[in-house]
């Protein structure tokens, strides 16, 4: 089975999905039309041997990142007495592919046939809810928790959706581009 056959079969069942306009270089990339398609597409791919969920992550397109999201200033001039003068924050300008959306990225592998396919699904930042893939792939368990922690995506149907990497007291989701760090007792 070749990757073209897999994609053709997928497009015949889900005519709304298409090849991604922004593909991952050297890999087949499929853009899903809506998040309702996500679980049916995942289970269809699983039936075709894509039993290995390699990677699950997301991208926030409301860039560029806010500098308030970082504890330290970028490139402080250590040579100046008293450290660097605080630089004025750059005027907010919409960044690359700016839109009020996030994209979830799934990478699935078919181990016997040596195939890999990327799935992408867009959803609005204010309504960051996706169906959980834990029922199909156990490896989604922690990766979804990671995406929940860092991006604030709520995975519906996840058995144990709670913070995994960041500290309990940390508020917000650090990998969202508009995350602002709240100074705490660990900041110098």
């Amino acid at each position: 089975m070749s990757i073209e056959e897999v994609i053709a079969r997928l497009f015949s069942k889900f005519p709304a999905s298409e090849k991604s306009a922004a593909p991952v270089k050297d890999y087949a990339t499929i853009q899903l039309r809506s998040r309702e398609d996500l679980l049916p597409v995942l289970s269809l791919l699983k039936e075709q041997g894509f039993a290995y969920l390699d990677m699950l992550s997301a991208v926030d397109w409301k860039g560029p990142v806010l500098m308030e999201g970082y504890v330290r200033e970028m490139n402080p001039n250590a040579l100046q007495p008293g450290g660097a003068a605080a630089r004025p924050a750059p005027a907010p300008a919409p960044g690359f592919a700016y839109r009020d959306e996030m994209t979830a990225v799934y990478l699935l592998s078919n181990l016997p046939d040596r195939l890999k396919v990327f799935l992408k699904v867009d959803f609005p930042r204010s309504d960051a809810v996706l169906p959980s893939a834990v029922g199909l792939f156990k490896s989604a368990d922690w990766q979804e928790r990671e995406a929940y922690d860092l991006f604030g995506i709520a995975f519906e149907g996840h058995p144990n959706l709670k913070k995994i990497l960041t500290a309990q007291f940390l508020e917000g989701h650090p990998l969202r581009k508009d995350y602002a760090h709240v100074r705490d007792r660990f900041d110098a």
Partner: protein
Amino acid sequence: MSVPQAPSRSPMKTDQLFVNLGPQHPSTHGVLRVGLTIEGELIVKAEPDIGYLHRGTEKLCEIRTYPQCIVLSDRWDYCSAMTNNLAYCLAVERLLGVRAPERADALRVVHCELNRIASHLILVGTYGIDIGAFTPFLYAFREREMILDLFEMSSGARLTYNYIRLGGVMRDVTKEFAEKTREFLAYFKPRIDEYDELLSYNPIFLDRTKGVGALSAKRAVEWGLSGPNLRASGVAYDVRKWEPQCGYEKYPFKIVLGKNGDCFDRYHCRVREMREAVKIIEAALDGLPEGPVMAKVPKVVKPAPGEAYAHVEGARGDLGIYAVSDGTACPYRLHVRAPSFVNLAILQELFVGQKLADAIAILGSFDIVLGEVDR
């Protein structure tokens, strides 16, 4: 007269007890905490708790330039920093459309495989300690020290190398490096048999590891395990064969497979992998081409907007980097598919029903590095 059958579980009622394993326990290999609920000796519930070492490297990458991020990549899996450098550089090179020269590719392979040996030696040593054998640790670290000396010779660092750079490697190796590496390999090959004698076929070690924490191939794939943990269950998934980069297709080596997927197989896959790594290094040194070690890469790295994914077979599994470029000098988004992180998730299920002492054996056999789990 019929003999009454002894019940499989003791009829004695025991209270459930909550035990904190870690985060500062030597057998958790870093700062991992596992909240165990035990009933007598048996584990009823296990909740791994991670994040103690979370430094937010994915966030930090967003305001650092592409070459600066290589330094951060050293800190993910600090036991095999070379493969981290390689995975990151391959992803950015795909964004740039740059390919490293042949000599750089061969040097990358030599360093990554040496690092794989060094990393597997840590497992052999520390796993012995987990199980109760102290001696192999001293032997393994003696050999690892020699590899670190080799790395010091080529990169100047012993743990965080920053040796593999965008478009090639930092600098060429000297003639002395190749000689010393061959010397080391000649010394090291018989040592692997020594580990087998000392630890692998030790009856006490076998009792503690054979048949403990067995994983079927289906279950291992379902949980997304990779690296020796997956291959121990008999699934032949090795990125070096699957999607060869840096000229791995040229080198003769076998995918090392286990049968039962138990702790012993996971451990022994790594021991046997060291033998394959020696073969790869020898072949790479024999066929080391002349030429430059750095491709033409612009001084300020600004890849065209786009997305790329590159993955390599790290010492702990399939290390993948998903990078999004917006055309500026800093990555727009960098995601690390850390093998230890994905490998660790299965413990919450695998620990249940095991004895407390076996939990230590299982955890050790997964060979996690918390720097990579938490990133």
